[in-house]
């Protein structure tokens, strides 16, 4: 378990103190895939570097399995780092070494013989499906292949934790998906705790079980990824989610061409979003039957996060004013967030 307690990191930049991380307290449980998301400069890279002390926090504690590693001697810290793998946005492979030697390099000093190191390195390269490039040099690999090698290298000393600093940000969407599913596989197979720093909402949505949102050095929201997505509290979180959701488009549609959504008197346009994991009830049919209103779905965007649907539907509800109000109340009771976009007195 990783526990960050009141982490602060202040830099001096041109004589001015800059607070990169402000009093962050976080708990990352074993076997979690924990996402930390934020725009550039939010302090997330600094924060993740505090976990293996590549950056020493100005104040605060970094507890790994209960031990405060900020108190470790240089030697103890090096031993602790062997159990915390890390991968980077720009891969940081050693250009003068072959793929195999890059992995072997990480194994040096582990007490294995030269042959054992080679054998283990090859095994790791097969695990990340890049064994055929063992004798190639990094300069001959694509970004995705380099990141695979970097992952193999990070896993060399059987770490309990894998830190990913913008690991997919330099990759195309297709390769990003492959690397993310590889990380997910490692988490599932080896129970390795993964901390994923990213500015891509899609990456978090894809694999993270828990998510923290960072802004200006502080964590402004944290929780299960599903809840963060389904029911964002902070404005920034909502903005972030908007970057991946198409639901916002409806506003533009209503404004730019009202003819696309013709409304009668009493009609209201609502946005229905799921905030709970269960959508097993046929809510739309239920509403139309129960209240005698008509629901015309004009737009829908549903995504799957942590195996549960998220997103929503934009619909026009027609009927008498009372019935519409009752229908909306019913939906709210069933944990559907209802946002009236246009019209009506509901």
């Amino acid at each position, binding site marked *: 378990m990783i526990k960050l307690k009141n982490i602060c990191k202040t830099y001096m930049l041109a004589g001015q103190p800059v607070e990169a991380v402000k009093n962050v307290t976080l708990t990352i449980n074993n076997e979690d895939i924990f996402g930390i998301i934020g725009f550039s400069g939010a302090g997330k890279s600094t924060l993740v570097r505090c976990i293996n002390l*590549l950056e020493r926090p100005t104040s605060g504690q970094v507890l790994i399995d209960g031990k405060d590693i900020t108190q470790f001697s240089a030697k103890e810290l090096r031993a602790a*780092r062997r159990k915390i793998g*890390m991968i980077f946005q720009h891969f*940081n492979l050693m250009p*003068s070494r072959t793929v195999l030697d890059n992995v072997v390099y990480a194994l040096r000093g582990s007490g294995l013989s030269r042959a054992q190191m080679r054998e283990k390195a090859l095994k790791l390269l097969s695990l990340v499906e890049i064994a055929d490039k063992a004798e190639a040099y990094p300069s001959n690999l694509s970004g995705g292949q380099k990141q695979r090698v970097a992952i193999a290298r990070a896993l060399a000393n059987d770490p309990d934790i894998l830190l990913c600093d913008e690991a997919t940000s330099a990759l195309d969407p297709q390769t990003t998906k492959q690397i993310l599913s590889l990380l997910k596989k490692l988490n599932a197979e080896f129970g390795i705790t993964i901390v994923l720093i990213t500015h891509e909402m899609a990456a978090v949505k894809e694999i993270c079980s828990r998510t923290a949102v960072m802004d200006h050095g502080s964590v402004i929201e944290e929780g299960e990824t599903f809840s963060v997505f389904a029911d964002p509290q902070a404005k920034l979180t909502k903005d972030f989610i908007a970057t991946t959701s198409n639901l916002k488009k409806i506003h533009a549609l209503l404004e730019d061409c009202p003819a696309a959504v013709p409304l009668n008197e009493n009609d209201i346009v609502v946005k229905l979003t799921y905030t709970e994991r269960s959508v097993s009830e046929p809510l739309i049919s239920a509403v139309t039957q129960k209240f005698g209103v008509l629901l015309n779905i004009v737009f829908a965007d549903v995504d799957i996060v942590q195996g549960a649907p998220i997103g929503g539907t934009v619909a026009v509800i027609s009927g008498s004013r009372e019935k519409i109000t009752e229908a909306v109340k019913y939906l709210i009771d069933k944990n559907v967030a209802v946002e009236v976009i246009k019209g009506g007195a509901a």
Partner: protein
Amino acid sequence: MELLNRIIPNVMADTGRLFDSVLATLQMTVWSGAVMLVCGLTLGIVLTVTKDGGIMQQKAVYHVLDKIINICRSVPFVIFIAILLPVTKAIMGTKIGVRGVIVPLVVASVPFFARQVETALANVGHGPVEAAQSMGKSPLSIIFTVLLRESIPSIARGTTITLINLIGLTAMAGYVGAGGLGDYAITWGYNYGHYDIIWVSVLFVILIVSVIQFIGNLIAKKNTH
């Protein structure tokens, strides 16, 4: 032989002198080059690791060394020969000859080479260093297995440049009677109006420089992937 006697008569009149001069130039280059390599590499590494953000950050050490290097690089070589005379005497036991010029050659070339090394190591970038740190490698191990190893091609190029500069400096060794090709060309060639001696000296310098450049390029190429 006949031909040589005709086109370079003054050189052929005393080939022993030419041989001695080539030997003196080679001796000066090899000895001061060897010392320079060790001292310059060490100094370049110390500069790199102690600077702000380095793996063994020691700002005071860095700033002192940085200033000393700047000062040394500003002093002309001839002045070095003069002001270092007592030091030369103390270290080498003599102020003249090839032995007498080694100390000023080293002092003049080390700061330049240290800067070359510093630039070469800086080009490795922070990424691989950070990766090695995250693997739990010690600073000493990072110096050898990351910084030096990854910068072999650039250091080879820097060494080539510095050695060739050094050969240029040895031309001034005549001031303390160390001989060498530069001295040979001026004293026996230019002063007597024996231009063939100048041309032959230049030819030999070109030869030595070419060999050094060839070796440097070869090492750089072999280590670039």
